[in-house]
């Protein structure tokens, strides 16, 4: 019974942690817009957590610069299981206009497993919500306590 309760709760309360790995802040602003009255993603139980230890979903924005690569990976490793990694915007997907730069270390999925990618530069809030709901679906999949 507890397991079912926990599984149900997991889908209802995804806390997100936002990592900026060299973004132009466009996606960050869109992400913040989600929390405002217009899109209000708190109705889905989404909350911006302050520490990766609290998070279920890690949202990464920006191409992975060589400065930020180690740090992003470290933060990702510090999130307790079960976790879902969402790449937000075109940059973590394909490096976007920064592709080929000497300081960009390629897309995020080169370094770690990415569950959901939301395209766009910057993605519309509706798209982000859609992506987060997909992430919640994946979070549901990682069921049970045994995955802990």
């Amino acid at each position: 019974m507890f397991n079912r309760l926990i599984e149900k709760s997991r889908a209802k309360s995804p806390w997100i942690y936002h990592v900026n790995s060299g973004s132009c802040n466009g996606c960050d602003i869109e992400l913040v817009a989600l929390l405002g009255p217009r899109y209000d993603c708190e109705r889905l139980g989404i909350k911006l957590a302050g520490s990766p230890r609290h998070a279920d979903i890690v949202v990464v924005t920006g191409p992975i610069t060589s400065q930020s690569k180690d740090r992003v990976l470290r933060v990702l490793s510090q999130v307790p299981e079960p976790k879902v990694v969402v790449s937000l915007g075109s940059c973590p997907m394909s490096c976007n206009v920064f592709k080929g730069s000497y300081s960009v270390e390629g897309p995020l999925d080169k370094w770690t497993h990415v569950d959901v990618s939301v395209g766009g530069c910057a993605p519309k809030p509706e798209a982000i919500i859609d992506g987060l709901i997909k992430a919640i679906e994946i979070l549901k999949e990682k069921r049970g306590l045994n995955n802990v």
Partner: protein
Amino acid sequence: MNGYSSILPLMAIMLPFLAAFIIALTGNKALGLKRVLAVIFTFIPLLAVILLFKPIIENGHIVSYWLGNWVPEKTWAIGIGLEIDAFGLFCGLIITLTCFLSSIFSIRYMEKDNGLEKYYTMFMLLTASMIGFVFTGDLFNMYVMLEIMTFAAIGLTAFRNHKYKSIEAGFKYIVIGSLGSSLILLGTVLIYAQAHTLNIAQISAILHGNYNAVTIFALALMLTGYAVKAFLVPCHTWPADAHMSAPSSISMLLSGVMSKTGIFGIIRILYMIYRSKCVAAPSMEFLMIFWGTITMLIGASMAIIQTDFKRLLAFSSVSQIGYVIVGFGVGLSAKTSVAVTGTMGGLYHMLNHAMFKSLAFLCAGAVLYRTGTTDTTKLGGLAKKMPYTTVLFMISLASIAGMPPFNGFVSKWLIYQSTFEAGYWPVTIIALLVSVMTLAYFIKLAQSVFFGKIHKEHENIKEIPWSMRVPMIVLAAVCIFAGTFWNVISDKLIEPAAYAIYNIQGYIDVMFNKGYAQNMFNHEIPIPKMTRAMAGYWSPINWLLLFVVLIIGFIVIASLLSKGNKKESIIDLSDTKYDTFTGGEKEYFSHMAGNDLFWGLKHQFRGYFKTLKNAHSGIVNDYVLWVAACAAVVTIYLFAVL
């Protein structure tokens, strides 16, 4: 009265003295034997005190003994008398217990030092003189014992004389300490000039109704003198230096017990010698409460800005002594039920302070023993290496901050209750605030010494040996016991002691013959009814049950929740997963310690803290000026009101 009970106090005093001489005479041979000797000869007084429990606490007797059988001639004391009432026994219990534990702690703690025979000589002298101080019934004998105590304490403070701080602290201590002793001696002389006797019981009988300017001057001098010993503000400057630089096994005695001897002196003066002037006198009540409040506030404020472990604890002692003095100040109230609550609070806090502050000092000693420093800015993360010490320190933290169900709560509560019932509600507010400040500086210690990141050079330290852990565990056990079973402590110790403080008639009659006191006082001396019924709504048994049930409930729920979660994978601690989160940066050494904490508080009151810091200039002349000024102010106040 049994035959043996009258010889016990003499034994308790003389045997440690004897041991001191034996150790001194035999030089630095057989040090191992001397350690054992010290333990044995501090255990014997403890045993003697425990044996005295039956006649004094249970049967309600007051044990007296005339040295050399110089019994009073025509009800005039000519010899030196020992007299132990329940209050003396209570102090004696604190002293002997603490000394015994300290001697056990010293075995390993002092092993790296040389000149140990001197250490043990002075240690035994300190023990014996403290016991002698509280057991004696003679005013001059009190002074002599106090001087021996001061010498031994100074010698022990300066024992590690290869460190500059020990020497400086020793010098400051001897100047201020001997000034205090001089004041006491002066007071004693003036009292002798009036009463022509030195027996406390007789003085209090004779002085009754015969107070004049000289005796009041003597009261002021002795009050200030004992205030130096009990380090009340502004005579609180030496303990910070001395406690910091003495070996921890001695700091424990200095702060836990020697301050109590100062308080013992103050109590004997106020409640016995100047009984009819001080008890139920609102002006004296105000003086003591005011003095205690200032002491607790300034001690706590100074403690917040310290960075040295032991120096912080020393200022904390100053602050806690303030609580005790406030308690006894309320004890002078005219409302008897309030007065009894206050006295009991003061007594209880004396016991508690001796226990938890000794424990904290031993923790500091343990840290010093393993790391070689007590500077909080250079320490950190010891919890992983010294788990026992950490737990014991946490117990002392909880006790001193007054977390229920630890002992600090009970005594502080009695003091709060007595202050607001006596009508001193601003004191209640300050006392509660100081309690939070106490918590704050202990949290600071916990954070900077035991938690956080460990320094590179301390990575290989080990837990302290068992012989050092045992005394600490005993102290911690007493802390918990005194908090949860306060009915027992109150019945067996506090109430008899509080009764004894007020029972001046019995004290006088035992020394002379029955009816002597009534004859001198012309009336029956009232003793307030001792009852702890008025002391609050606290019932720890209830509380304990609550706690146990909750813990069981919690365990049940936790086990339900963690069902199926038993699978433990192998943890690779070098994984970045276990890094401390620092915004994704690589883990590096970063530790909040010492004065990094409480910035908001220190910033907002920077003027106040800066003034205080500058006032403690470290110049010995200034400190003497403070004591002298204090004596002057007390004298003027007493002449104005009495």
